[in-house]
């Protein structure tokens, strides 16, 4: 990088070059890009985490076909994704619309609404673990009102996944609410005024103005839920450790267990590659199928 002076006082433009971006680029390449290549390489090796990885060809990939737990964990991951979407999307959409609205107590309540954003995944998971404790927690006293007299949510094969989805949603609904709130605020009031003059009721306005105007945000938020749910692993590790049995063992948790508990890093790398592949494919698919990438503005309809 040299400090050049303009030649003969002319407007010789000096622009910042690659040097300025180099530290960030190199740093991210080392910790973000290279690992993707390395994990692919490791999936063809046998490595226990200590010595040197040993090339074993496609042995690990063959083992995938015989790993019933892996297929099971993929199914569980899918179920969890759907559950999370079903809980988070309608709730955060309505909350976002509400938080963008005119209510007088909105500011005070919003302060409370976003508080889960501040807590760490660990804090949230452990708090809910104690809340859902069938002996001392809230679950013990309130369980019977929701048809679970013994208050056992996390320890039940049938209910554990729902409980996990609920806790994860508690953590992430505020974030999605923020997205919807910001988007809802940008819907021009004039659209509602016109609808009002045409005699459209509130519900009608919501369906024909608010929802279409939030279309892009709904897609963006959904992509985040779907891709995010592939990585919810910390909450599950702390809440159920994948149990009872393997009832909540999602793919990333299965990878963690294989790699850092069973020290079969080679096979765990196969699962990691799968995770990258599924995540990327899913988000590309969602984005393509909805045509999101072709759109430029939420308010295209405005000018026409």
């Amino acid at each position, binding site marked *: 990088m040299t*400090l050049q002076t*303009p030649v003969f006082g002319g407007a010789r433009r*000096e622009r*910042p*070059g*690659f*040097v*300025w*971006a180099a*530290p*960030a*680029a190199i*740093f*991210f390449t080392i*910790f*973000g890009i*290279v690992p993707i290549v*390395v*994990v692919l390489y490791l999936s063809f090796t046998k490595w226990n985490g200590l010595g040197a990885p040993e090339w074993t060809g496609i042995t690990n990939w063959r083992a995938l076909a015989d790993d019933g737990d892996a297929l099971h964990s993929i199914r569980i991951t899918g179920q969890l994704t759907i559950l999370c979407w079903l809980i988070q999307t309608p709730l955060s959409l*309505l909350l976002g619309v*509400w938080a963008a*609205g*005119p*209510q007088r107590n909105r500011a005070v*309540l919003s302060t*409370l609404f976003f*508080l*889960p*954003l501040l807590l*760490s995944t*660990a*804090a949230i998971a452990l*708090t809910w673990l*104690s809340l859902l404790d069938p002996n*001392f927690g809230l679950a013990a006293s309130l369980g019977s009102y929701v048809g679970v007299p013994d208050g056992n949510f996390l320890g039940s094969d049938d209910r554990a996944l729902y409980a996990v989805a609920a806790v994860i949603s508690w953590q992430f609904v505020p*974030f999605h609410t923020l997205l919807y709130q910001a988007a809802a605020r*940008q819907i*021009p*009031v004039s659209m509602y*005024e016109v609808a009002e003059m045409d005699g459209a009721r509130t*519900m009608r306005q*919501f369906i024909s103005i608010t929802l279409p105007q939030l279309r892009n945000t709904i897609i963006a938020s959904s*992509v*985040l839920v779907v*891709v995010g749910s592939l*990585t919810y692993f*910390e909450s599950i590790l702390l809440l159920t450790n994948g149990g009872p049995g393997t009832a909540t063992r999602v793919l990333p948790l299965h990878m963690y267990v294989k*790699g*850092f508990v069973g020290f079969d*890093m080679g096979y*765990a*790398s196969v699962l*990691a590659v799968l*995770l*990258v592949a599924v995540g*990327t494919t899913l*988000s590309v698919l969602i984005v393509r199928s909805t045509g999101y990438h072709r759109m*430029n*503005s939420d*308010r295209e309809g405005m000018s026409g």
Partner: protein
Amino acid sequence: MTLYTAARHRAAETRPHVTTTVRVRPPKGNAGRRNRPVNVAAGIAASFWLVIVAVPLYYIALTSLRTSDSYLTDGALVPPGNLTLDNYRQVLDLGFDTFIVNSTIVTVITMVLVLAMALPAAYAIVFGGTRAVRATFNTFLLGLAIPAQAVIIPIYLLITRLHLYDSLTAIILPTAAFSLPMAIVVLTSTLRDIPRDLFDAMTVDGAGTVELFRRLVLPLSRPGLVSVGIFSGLNAWNGFIFPLVLTQSEARRVIPLGLWNFQSRFGTDVPGLLAAVVLSTVPVLALYLFGRRQLLRSLSAGYRR
């Protein structure tokens, strides 16, 4: 949180002119807002959410002030006769102060690293525009989609080979790296708002790249820097997977791991655990009370237009 994909698609779109002209915000005060309909369903959702959020928070605060006996005998939400601060004292005695120090070190250094690397990069991306720089930007957009979980094994390999295992550096390096893509997306959009004419005028006056960075970019990028600082700081403070896999000893433990360890060692001491939860949130909560808008804006900065 590593849920970045959508931001990649949003950021890939061209930003400024179209949206700014149609971004009609209602004027402040009631006059402009009156015409926005009150949505009943949304109101119901809001009341529901209020209970769902308030009850656990009340539970955390209350239980952290209970005696262990009161926790075991009284109901979860019934206020006990006498409140106590003993849980907090006990948690600090058990080494939580070390975890707070570790988390603070990790958070501060991560923030500094991220800001120091991301701002010059965004500067080059916005005002440079050579092919190498554009390629860098695209790499970072791609990076938004990489989940940390998927590359944790090679990162573990890398950290052990660098002989950094079980050090705070081992946490800082990957945490900073995974905050970079979002940081660069946010700062790039901040810098795009700097009027081009201003830049050109200064270059004509003979300002070099360093001078432009110091006199133009640095002062005008403050809002973006604050956002990125908060975002990456919160990520570092609350991060779990890198400390989990890359550290081991108690001396290197950070708060989220400390919480987990406390829970697995003193499973029944829920009041102690929740006192630790409160302690872990105090700095963030203070930030929230003083600058709620700024903090919330920071958290969603990369995802909004």
